[in-house]
């Protein structure tokens, strides 16, 4: 049974589940490190998923779809910035508002633009084709894991070390870390923390937009209301557990993505869907409990 569960089609499916969580979490990491408590990743991502379908449908290009998704995510980031950074709104309240706004707005636009409710499925939606890497594709098992994925998977993988270097060596990355740890010191040095945080929200919006694009024009070619289905929240957990560090964040996102993938596969073994849907969240709880136990042992 285990062989069936972890066969090579499992390897092929894991990146599809990992990519949206990882992209959204990388965006969340920017906010986390810059000291913006942003738990609106779900809303950013859902908006991105809708905008991707919109862009891909009207332009006929998945790349323009992804671009539309990034712009939509950035727009949501700017909404967040306006209410949190400029008007001083509580970040939790603003996050909840943005999440509700995204759910309502995408459902409304689905009706207003495509005249359907629930889901929009049309052959004119140009999705991403899998990228086949010539030599890698022929390696057994690993080939199916690393080759034949959407371009956004490779973008996400490259973004992990890139973000690490960005935080370590780039001026804006350094300032983001300072804004997150001791904004008063940044201000005393003549740099406005909220301006740095605005950039973090813009970057977060772009990453979450891509995460949404992976859901709607790479994994499938359609938009379903609330199709982010809690992945933004799992990304939030990954961000908080890794404290915004790209490398641990990658590992956590992979674990969550694998469990997400497994939960689909075990449905094939006759487990009720209600149980399999719980798996990502149970995994989250297990990781949370395990980590707090480990940290407590470390501190004594």
């Amino acid at each position, binding site marked *: 049974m285990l062989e069936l569960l972890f066969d090579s089609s499992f390897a092929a499916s894991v990146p599809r589940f990992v990519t949206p969580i990882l992209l959204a979490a990388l965006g969340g990491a920017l906010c986390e490190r810059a000291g913006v408590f942003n738990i609106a990743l779900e809303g950013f991502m859902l908006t991105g998923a809708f905008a991707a379908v919109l862009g891909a449908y009207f332009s006929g290009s998945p790349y323009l779809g992804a671009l539309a998704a990034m712009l939509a995510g950035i727009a949501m980031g700017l909404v967040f910035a306006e209410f949190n950074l400029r008007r001083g709104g509580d970040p939790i309240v603003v996050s909840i508002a943005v999440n509700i706004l995204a759910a309502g707005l995408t459902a409304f636009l689905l009706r207003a633009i495509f005249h359907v409710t629930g889901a929009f499925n049309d052959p004119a939606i140009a999705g991403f084709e899998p990228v086949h890497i010539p030599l890698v594709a022929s390696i057994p098992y690993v080939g199916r894991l690393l080759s034949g994925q959407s371009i956004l998977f490779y973008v996400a993988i490259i973004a992990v070390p890139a973000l690490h270097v960005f935080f370590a*060596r780039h*001026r804006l990355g*350094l300032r983001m*870390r300072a804004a997150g740890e001791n904004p008063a010191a940044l*201000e*005393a040095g*003549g740099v406005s923390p909220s301006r740095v945080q605005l950039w973090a929200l813009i970057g977060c919006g772009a990453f979450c937009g891509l995460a949404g694009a992976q859901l709607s024009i790479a994994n499938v070619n359609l938009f379903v209301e609330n199709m982010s289905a809690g992945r933004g929240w799992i990304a939030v957990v990954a961000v908080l557990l890794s404290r915004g560090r790209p490398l641990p964040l990658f590992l956590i996102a992979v674990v969550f993505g694998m469990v997400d993938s497994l939960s689909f596969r075990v449905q094939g073994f006759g487990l009720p869907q209600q149980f399999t849907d719980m798996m990502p969240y149970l995994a989250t709880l297990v990781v949370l409990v395990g980590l707090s136990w480990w940290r407590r042992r470390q501190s004594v």
Partner: protein
Amino acid sequence: MHVALSGITVRFGALTAVDDVSLAITPGEIHAIVGENGAGKSTLMNALFGLVEPAAGAISIDGTVRRWTSPRGAIAAGLGMVHQHFMLQEEMTVLENIVLCSEPVGRFGFVDFAAAHRRLKESADSHGIVIGLDRVVGDLSVGERQVVEILKVLYCEAEVLILDEPTSVLTPQEKDRLFAILKSFRAAGKAIVLITHKLDEVMEIADRVSVMRGGRLIASGRRAETSKEEIARGIIGGELPAARQRRPRAPGEVVLSVDKLVAAGRGMAVGPITLSMRAGEIVGIAGVSGNGQAELVQALTGLRPSISGAITLCGVRIEALDVERRRQAGMSYIPEDRQRVGLALGATVAENANAGRDDRAAFSRGPFLNRAAMTRFARSLIERYRIRVGGASARASTMSGGNKQKLVVGRELARATPLVIAENPTWGVDIGAIDFIHGELMRMRDEGHAVLLVSTELDEILALSDRILVMYAGRLAGEVARDEASRERIGEMMTSRAVDALPEVA
């Protein structure tokens, strides 16, 4: 670089914090600005540095009037400031902290750390400063952190260096090192402004002294032409309080005994600590901030769980009790952080004055609070401690730091418990309030209470304590009786140089 302030006035609402102050800062000079807390020293310098905007007045540099509304302009003009509370990123390295906000950037906005490293090494070497640039600031001692702050200023090529209370957190040895660096700066022709309230240091290092009181500049002149007494009279605007009489007193019963107490600390375990205190004595715990004093106090008061060991207060084992039960067992606590631990700033003075006492019959009627009794009690504290506040129903946040502290001290001491724990009780309060708080602690001692005084101010420890314990790296590094105590001896223990030479403290 000559800096001239003329007619600087800063207002916060109705309060005039700095009132028409004119001052000249000359290169190659160390200029001390002295005064009580709230005299306007820091505000004046914040105005110069662009952190607050003056309502009137002008700043000129080398004869030209300049204006800036943020530190950026001040830094560009060649000013640098080391704040009283360090402005550092603890999770970053020394180098990252130093380049932050003025990063040398190469292509695509990436920071050229190698260039920064070279440039910094050069200027640090020329002033005899030694520090590991790749160390994480969180791992540094307070003295080393200050060096990082100074390097930050040096890196921006500041010609005028402003230091706000730079020695308040340093050991005597670290202070000497700092002064050596400042002298090197002076020799290099930089201007140094030293904000302080320690007159010994003024006499030791300053070339020029300016005295501020109530927002005004009272006097300014060459240090060589004045005396410590004259400066002190200028600061308080009258005669000095008389030296305190100390009544000899035989210690009484054991009030508190701590046996092999271990508590979790930040990055280290604190303890095992064994100590005992008797009625009618003040035991001082000296040490550089961050050597486990805070953890020890929290473990005693119940704010932090202890890992092992026993605490006995008036014959009752309390290590497993919660904060409320420990207080009932006979302990009161003057916390270091009056803003967050000592007071609820959003609540009224009356509510704060009764915090922790509302279970008593005198302050409640059944399950309800007795507002009239609470107000009466708060008024009695306001009167007795001469707390300057709008009234018992004013919010605690409206009081100045010294008045907030008086309210905390008054509330805790009014409980008249056998044990009083005072943690940096005079931190950031003015000379008048310091004198009053010291007097109250001595009164408690004379009346037969045991007072545990935890302080990073060595002068305070030496002035009040009957016995002095020194903490270093989470343990007691030694004990000194009052008669044998000297700054040098304690200073050495504070840096553990003498730890091995000392017997185990019983």
